[in-house]
C-alpha cells in the first residue's frame, strides 16, 4: 500500500475535524453575535476576583 493513501487519509481527516468544529461553533451560536465578545474581552476582570467567597452558592446553570 502506498504512502499516498495514508497521507490523503490524514489530510482529509484533519480537514473534516476542522469542518466539524466549524459546524459545532455555528450550532452553539458563536456566529449569532459577532460584536459583543469583541467588547467583552477588553473589560478588566480583576474586580470579579476580589469578591469575597462567602457568596451564596448558586446552582450551576444546567442548560449551558
Amino acid at each position, binding site marked *: 500500500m502506498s504512502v499516498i*493513501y495514508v497521507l490523503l487519509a490524514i489530510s482529509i481527516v484533519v480537514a473534516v475535524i476542522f469542518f466539524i468544529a*466549524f459546524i459545532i461553533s455555528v450550532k452553539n451560536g458563536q456566529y449569532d453575535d459577532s460584536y459583543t465578545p469583541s467588547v467583552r474581552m*477588553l473589560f478588566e476582570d480583576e474586580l470579579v476576583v476580589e469578591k469575597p467567597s462567602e457568596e451564596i452558592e448558586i446552582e*450551576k*446553570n444546567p442548560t449551558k
Partner: protein
Amino acid sequence: MDTSNCYHCGDDCGKKVIQFDEKDFCCNGCKTVYEIFSTNDLSYYYDLQSAAGATPKAIEGKYDFLDTAAIVEKLTEFNDGNLQIVNLYIPHIHCSSCIWVLENLNKLNPFVSNSQVDFPKKTVRISYNSSSLSLKELVLLLARIGYEPYISLDDYDNKKKSVDRSLIYKLGVAGFAFGNVMFLSFPDYFDLSTSASSGGEFWLNEYQRLFRWLMFGFSLPVVFYAGRDYFTSAYKGIRSNILNIDVPIALGIVVLFLRSTIDITFDLGPGFFDSLTGLIFFLLLGKFFQQKTYSFLSFERDYKSYFPIAVTRITSEGKEETTQVHDIKRGDRLLIRNEELIPVDGILINGNARIDYSFVTGESEAVRKESGDKVFAGGKQLQSAIEIETLKSVSQSYLTQLWSNSVFQQDKSTHFQTLTDSIGKRFTITVLSIATIATAFWLYYDPSKAMNVFTAVLIIACPCAISLAAPFTLGNMLRIFGRKKFYLKDTQTIERLAQIDTAIFDKTGTITTSQKSVATYEGMPLSQEEESLLKNTIRASNHPLSRSLYDMLSEQNIVTLDDYEEHLGKGVEGSKDNNHIKVGSADFVGEQQSEENLNTTVHISSNATYKGKYVFHNEYRKGVSKLFDEMSETIKLAILSGDNEGEKSRLEKLLPKLTPLYFNQKPEHKLEFIKSLQEQDKKVLMVGDGLNDAGALAQSNVGVAISENVNVFSPACDGILDASKFQQLYQYIIASKKAMIIIKLSFVLSLLYNLVGLYFAVTGQLQPVIAAILMPLSSISVVAFTTVMTNFLGKKIK
C-alpha cells in the same frame, strides 16, 4: 451661570444641580443609580464610557403583571421552578459600559447567576434563582439602574424564534469542498494533456482515479445540500411559468455534475468538480453578502409590539387584578393608569381622560374625553388613572382590525420580479438555442463531439457572474445606506425604490418634527413682570403644552409664587404680590372664542383682563421645501394626513404648487388611497411614522418609516430612515437608480466573459481548466467592478 452636565446621563443639569460625591447630577434618579453603582463596586461603569446612563423613570405599578405565574411562564426561556432564564430587550443598551454593567448584575443581586448581553440585538439573557428573586424584582432592579426592559405583547405571543443558520452551514460545506477539490485537482492542472497511454507522469496516472473519485465524493454534499435551494427555486419558477435566473444555474449544476461523473466513470477526463464546487461557493457567498440584517431593528412589527401584556382589571367585588390582554372580555372594567395604553375599545366610566391618539390617527394633540364617551384602543392616557368598560376584545378593536386586512398577509417580495430574474428568461432561451444549434452542427459534422459540445455550452454559460452582480451591488448599497442612517429591510427594496414614481407623505411626525415646539404669540404684549410670572406659573405644571411653552420663554429668575393652583383640563393660575395670571384654555381665562381655530392655543389673562394667546404650530423638518422641490421634478407627490386642516395654508406655502393635500385620513383610507394609485400602475413610496400609517406602509411598493430614534419602535415597513437624514431621501432614491445601472453594466461585463467561454465550448475545445479559470475570473471581476462602483456612488451621497 455655567452649565454642568450630569455625571450619570450626560444631560444638562439645568439650574438645579444635585451635588453628590463631588459630582454633578441632573436629578435624584441619576444620583441614586450612581449610589447603587458606587456602593456595589460598579463605578468602573463610568470609566468605560462617561455619562452612559439613563435616568430611571417612575415605574410604580407598571410591572405588577409579572406577579402572574402564567405570564412569567410565557416570558421565560427556561423555568424549572428554581432557575429561570429570561431574555429581555433593553432599548437603552448602546455602549460598552452597558454591556459591562449588565453582565455584572450578580454584584447587585447575588441571585443572578449569569447574564449575557447580545449587543447588536440589544438584549440581555439572564439566569437567576427564581425562588429568591422573582422576574418582577429582576425587572425592577434593571429599571432602577436605568436599564428598563421593554416587554410587550409581542414577547408574549411568539416566544421561541429559531435562528436560521442554514446559509452559514451551506456556505461552510461548499467552501470546505471547494478548497479540497481544488487541491485534488492540482495534479490535473499541472499535467494537462498526459494520460497513461501517452506516457505521462507515472505518479499522477497511477492515482488519477483515486483523486477523481475523492473529488466526486466532496462534490456530493455541495450539489445535494448546499446547492439545493437553486433546484427548488428553479422548479418553483418553471411551475409558475417563469424562467428565473435560477433555471440556468440549476441546469448548469446538473449538467456539470452529470458530465463530470460520466467523464470520470469512463475515464474521459478529470471532470469539472472544481468549477462545480466553486460555482456554488461563489453563488452562496453572494447570497450571504446580500443578507445584511440590522438585528436591532425590526421591520415586521405590528400593534403587538406596542401593546402591553397585561392590564389591571377591576373585578365585580371592586378588587384590582392583573389580567392578560387576550383574556379581556366584553364588559370588563379596566383601570388605565397614567402613560398606559388603552388595549381595547371601551366606554369611559370614571376619571379625567386625556388621550393621546397619535399612534392611531396621527393627530398630534391629546383628546379630552368625558365619562360615557367612547375610547379607542391604541390611545395613551396622559393624566391620572381612568376606568373603562370594554366593548370589544383586543383583536376586534378599531385599531387592531387594521391588521386583519389581507395586505399584512402578503409578502411584497413574491410579486416582484427582480432585474436579474427578468433577464433570466432571455438568457435561458439564448443559451438553450446556442446549445441546440451547436449540437446540431456537430451532429452533422462530427457526432462524437456533439454531446461534449452541448454540455460544454451549458456549463460555460452558467450565469454565475450575472447572478452575483445584483447581490454584491445591492448588498454593498445596503451597507452604504446603513452608514448614512437609512436602514433597508433587504436588497430587493433598493430595486423597488429605484422604480418609484409617486411618493406619499404622512404629515405629523413625518414632515413635521414630533415636538410642537414653535409657538407664536398673538395679542397684547406682556410686560416684564407678567412674563416672569407666566414662566414661573407654568414652571410647576406638568402639562405637555406648559412644558414646551416653558422651554420657549426667555430665562426668568425663579420666584416663589404666593399662590398657585392647577385646574385639571383647564389651566393653571398663579399670583405674586398683586399680580394674578391665568394660563389655559379660552373658557378658563374668560375669553369667548369667536373664530374657529384648529391649531392648539394657550390663552393668557392677567389680572382678569385677556391678554392674548400662544398659537402652537407644527414645526417642519429642515429642508422639507427643498426636498419636495427636488422630488417634484421626477416624482409625483402628495400629503396624506390624519390630522385636521389647521396647517393647510402653511403647507401650501411650503410645498411645491399644486401638491395634493388630503386631511382627516383614517388609517384604512390611507391604505385604500395607495391601493387605488397602484391600480393606475403607479409605483408608490409611502413615507410615514406611526401605527396609523402601518396599512399604507404595507400596501405601498416601498414603505419607509421616519424615526427620530431608530431604537424606538416604528411600524412594519421596508426601510427606516433616521429623521436627521430626511432631506437626503431624494438622493437615496437617485442612488438606488444608479445602483441599477451598475448592475446592468456588470451584466454586460459578465456576458463578455460568457462570449469568450462560448467560443471554446462551441468549437468543442473546452478543457476543465479553462472553465476553472474563466468562471472565478468573471465572478471576481464582476464583484470588483460592482464594489468599486458602489463605493464611488456612496462617496457622492452626502
